């Protein structure tokens, strides 16, 4: 039975939750509005298609956009197959060995929480120096892949675990091969989880500066290949606002582009996933 005294307590909790939610949303909106307010004036077709000049104060961000795209491409083409593969292993094949999967999962969770600068130093020592890839988009993309993998694997694994057991049972009772079932049935239905992982991973990769400054580098020239050094949008924004007096306006413009890019990529990912999931 509910006592009258418990009611105000409930309300307080509700008020606290609403206040926190409102504060968080408001903060986010403030940041977004600030970037929109300052950045919208910068945004133009020319801004997107011309090369940066005068340390980034003038000109546009065409080379930065290409570098960012290439870094992301390298990162995803390595991390998606590897991440999904590991997730499949953990969720579908390692079920008989819970001890091992628990150990792997714990390691991944720790890795996911490691500060990006640590990945940056690792990438610098391993990809740039050890493997001799130098300051290059390849080094940067691979470093980001290491950073994104734990997030991707954990989310993808959740995706596979969320697949109804009825599919597995149904496939097994039809005598279907494991590989075929995986490819045709489990993968599409695990898509929501994969997309969540992908969106989180892309978000982290696009926002990254510390791990990239030591690997993909600072060069703002248009890259000719993934062997060239290239400056990502996030580093460009960081440099303009921190090291270049008078670079603020351009920094806002670049930040707006970054946010728009994230929105576009995320919507595209959800759209693809939805089509996939319906089996179309």
């Amino acid at each position: 039975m509910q006592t009258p005294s418990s009611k105000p307590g409930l309300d307080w909790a509700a008020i606290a939750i609403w206040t926190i939610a409102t504060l968080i949303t408001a903060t986010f909106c403030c940041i977004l509005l600030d970037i929109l307010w300052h950045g919208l004036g910068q945004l133009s077709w020319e801004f997107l298609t011309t090369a940066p000049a005068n340390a980034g104060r003038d000109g546009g961000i065409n080379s930065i956009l290409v570098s960012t795209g290439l870094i992301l491409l390298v990162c995803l083409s390595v991390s998606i197959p590897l991440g999904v593969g590991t997730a499949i292993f953990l969720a579908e094949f390692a079920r008989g060995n819970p001890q091992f999967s628990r150990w792997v999962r714990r390691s991944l969770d720790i890795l996911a929480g490691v500060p990006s600068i640590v990945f940056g130093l690792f990438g610098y020592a391993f990809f740039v120096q050890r493997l001799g890839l130098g300051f290059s988009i390849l080094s940067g993309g691979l470093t980001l892949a290491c950073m994104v993998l734990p997030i991707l694997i954990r989310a993808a694994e959740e995706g596979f675990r969320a697949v109804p057991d009825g599919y597995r049972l149904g496939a097994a009772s039809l005598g279907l091969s494991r590989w075929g079932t995986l490819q045709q049935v489990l993968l599409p239905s695990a898509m929501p989880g994969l997309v969540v992982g992908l969106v989180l991973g892309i978000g982290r990769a696009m926002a990254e500066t510390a791990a990239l400054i030591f690997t993909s580098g600072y060069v703002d020239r248009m890259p000719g290949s993934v062997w060239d050094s290239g400056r990502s949008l996030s580093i460009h924004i960081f440099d303009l606002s921190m090291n270049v007096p008078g670079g603020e306006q351009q920094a806002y413009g670049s930040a707006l582009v970054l946010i728009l890019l994230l929105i576009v990529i995320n919507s595209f990912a959800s759209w693809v996933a939805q089509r996939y999931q319906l089996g179309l």
Partner: protein
Amino acid sequence: MTALDTYSQTEHPEASHTQAVAELIQADSLSLHYGKTIAFSEVSLGLGAGEITAIVGPSGCGKSSFLMCLNRLTDLVPEAEVTGRLSWGNWDLLHPKLDTTRLRRRVGMILQKPNPFPLSIWKNLAFPLAEHGIKQRAEQQQRIELALQEVGLWDEVKDRLRSSALQLSGGQQQRLCLARALVLQPEVLLMDEPCSALDPISSRRVEELVLGMRGRYTVAIVTHNLAQAKRLADQTAVFWTETAGGKLIELGATTQIFEAPQHPLTQDYVRGLQG
């Protein structure tokens, strides 16, 4: 060389069809454990060829587990251990080297909750066919159309074969699952409460389909619905939970089970007093 190997070499899957229907699936003192938990024990039961066998009893008495032994789905459960004898003609279904892919092609299964794959209607049927080596489009098309017609779904879906199977209604989904099993041309169908998640009308349709299978397929159907068992089955098996897992307490022709039950628990059960 074991007898099993010889058997699988000489017999072509297609050729086996008529021959196998004439045979009985026979369980002798069959028991299933999950680790230390006993699902059911000492069940001896024969599924008559071309007959419909209903398995009834209260929840948790091992009915579904029994079905899972028949197509070796128990292999998927790491701790499951089956003992006793289970044979289909001269085929030992518990043999560790049994070709489960082949067994499951001949023994179709329908689960309680419709589980069409998240693929198009066409792909739901074409994918199992392709997996079993039937990749020619013409043959696929012929088999798919046949299976869909058999479950009365062809006219409803023939114009939207490439739309998602998940967009079908619950009853249509269950019939699609039935078609998915039939498209492989099995000889035996295992049904685990196939109607319990459906509305009465859809349930009736599935029931009619099952009735139509008498003589052509060997059917084992687990059900909670005694009236359904009475309407469908040639023979009825009553499972009951005892201290050490499920047991088969009575087996007989359906008319005998419902009109002259022998076991006191069965008597109460069919009168609706227990379970």
